[in-house]
């Protein structure tokens, strides 16, 4: 079974972001970038499926600027066999990404496509579901367990009330939640080997898709700052403050 895994280049999750002084966007100049954490989980799951003999080939794909090749190389170092880069400098939102990915799915015909449930920059949580809709495939979103069984896919999903298990016809789309697995780190020899693995570059024009976002980003502002509070010296003082100052308990 062929597995396609989509990855996104985003700001490193440890970095505290800054808004540009002109409020046009978040300032990403000289900021450390990395693979989106949920995409790392997606790559890990694909590689584990290959190690278990369930997957025969793992193909990593990204839609983004030239620099996003770094994240494809990371995916290759983690165990993907080859990579596809849909290269664009446009501001791509979920719909554009899903359209490009749908073309890749059409060409590659993977049995299973795995994506992260959300990217930590836009926090959209849309691309996997959109890809599923565009390709007419079922979706197992927010997955915390994925099992291939009798030609079907069993996905345990993290939902608001707890856990839900669904069975999907293959081919299918899965998006990862945090507890699906714990991603490994790439080892130095694997990073070296990854440099020699095939990486194909395509443009949205070649795929025949329009990826630029139609949404206008009117402005980006920092959130309202919380006023720093006080330290209290004892439980008694805390209870007193909550009762008489904040008036949130009686």
């Amino acid at each position: 079974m062929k597995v396609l895994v989509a990855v996104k280049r985003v700001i490193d999750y440890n970095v505290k972001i800054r808004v540009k002084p002109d409020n046009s966007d978040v300032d990403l100049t000289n900021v450390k970038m990395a693979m989106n954490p949920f995409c790392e989980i997606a790559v890990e799951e694909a590689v584990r499926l290959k190690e278990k003999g369930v997957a025969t080939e793992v193909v990593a794909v990204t839609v983004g600027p030239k620099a996003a090749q770094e994240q494809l190389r990371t995916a290759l170092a983690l165990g993907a066999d080859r990579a596809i880069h849909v290269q664009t400098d446009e501001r791509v939102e979920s719909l554009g990404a899903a359209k490009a990915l749908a073309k890749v799915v059409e060409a590659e015909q993977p049995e299973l496509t795995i994506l992260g449930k959300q990217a930590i920059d836009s926090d959209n949580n849309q691309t996997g579901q959109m890809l599923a809709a565009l390709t007419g495939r079922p979706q197992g979103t927010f997955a915390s367990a994925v099992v291939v069984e009798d030609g079907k896919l069993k996905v345990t999903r993290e939902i608001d009330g707890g856990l839900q298990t669904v069975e999907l016809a293959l081919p299918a789309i899965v998006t990862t939640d945090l507890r699906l697995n714990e991603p490994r780190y790439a080892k130095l020899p694997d990073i070296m080997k990854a440099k020699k693995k095939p990486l194909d570059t395509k443009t949205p024009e070649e795929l025949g898709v329009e990826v630029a976002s139609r949404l206008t980003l009117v402005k980006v502002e920092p959130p309202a700052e919380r006023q720093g509070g006080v330290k209290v010296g004892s439980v008694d003082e805390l209870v007193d403050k909550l009762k008489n100052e904040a008036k949130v308990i009686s």
Partner: protein
Amino acid sequence: MSILVLAEQHDGQLAETTAHVVAAAKAIGGDIDVLVAGEHVGAIAEAAARLDGVSRVRVADSAVYAHQLAEPLGELLVALADDYSHVLAAATTTGKNVMPRLAALKDVAQLSEIIAVESADTFKRPIYAGNAIATVQSPDALKVMTVRATAFDAVAETGAASVEAVETVVDNALSRFVGEELASSDRPELGAAKVVISGGRGMGSGDNFTLLEGIADKLGAAIGASRAAVDAGFVPNDMQVGQTGKIVAPELYIAVGISGAIQHLAGMKDSKVIVAINKDEEAPIFQVADYGLVGDLFEILPELESKL
């Protein structure tokens, strides 16, 4: 303008969040319909009909919608969407699961988790774990959005909308519901509770969460957790508060043994009053806490319980 709101269900009842999404719809302005899709949902439809501002409740009662699976629910929304300028759902796992399918099939962008309505086509939404707020304008004829319930005050229940059955029938050969493990609790729902007390890695074990229970009982609080506490297996995933868990904004949020990572703050920093209990006086949680108490939670919690 006409707006369709997808009703959120919880335990066979209309979920509280729906009243908040209707409030967002009212802020946009126009006729508001609510769609209730599920199996045996008559009572849910009646409850939706009482929401202030709703003119019509449309009911799709069929086994195919029983577990809100995204494939049939998405198809139903696609079939109905042409009547509307906006389709809204709560930013719950149900809304997040299905709405992008509608948007993609209608070839429109989706606006996720809006927190303010500027006009009928311009909305505010948090990005980067709430560390920036984007104002976004959509030129699409159909706006598909999810709504952060805590950002809108619930509408009252004084309405009397009409209730109509939806004729559209869809089938679903792609996905099948197998089962679910739902947390059952007598406590208020995390997203709707007035008081939330959350434990982090500092709790040390799942058993130690009983230290929070006594306090939660006294305050009528819901119990939450950090990701570290969930990952460590102390408590189930549905208790996670944060960027990728639940977003809460109670009157009072008490963080116990939680360091205050940005991903956690993203889920609770709009709470009215924040209390932090942590033994590390440098913990970042104190930067957002109105009241911080530095000390060992194993001493503080029993004392707090006895003094409430």
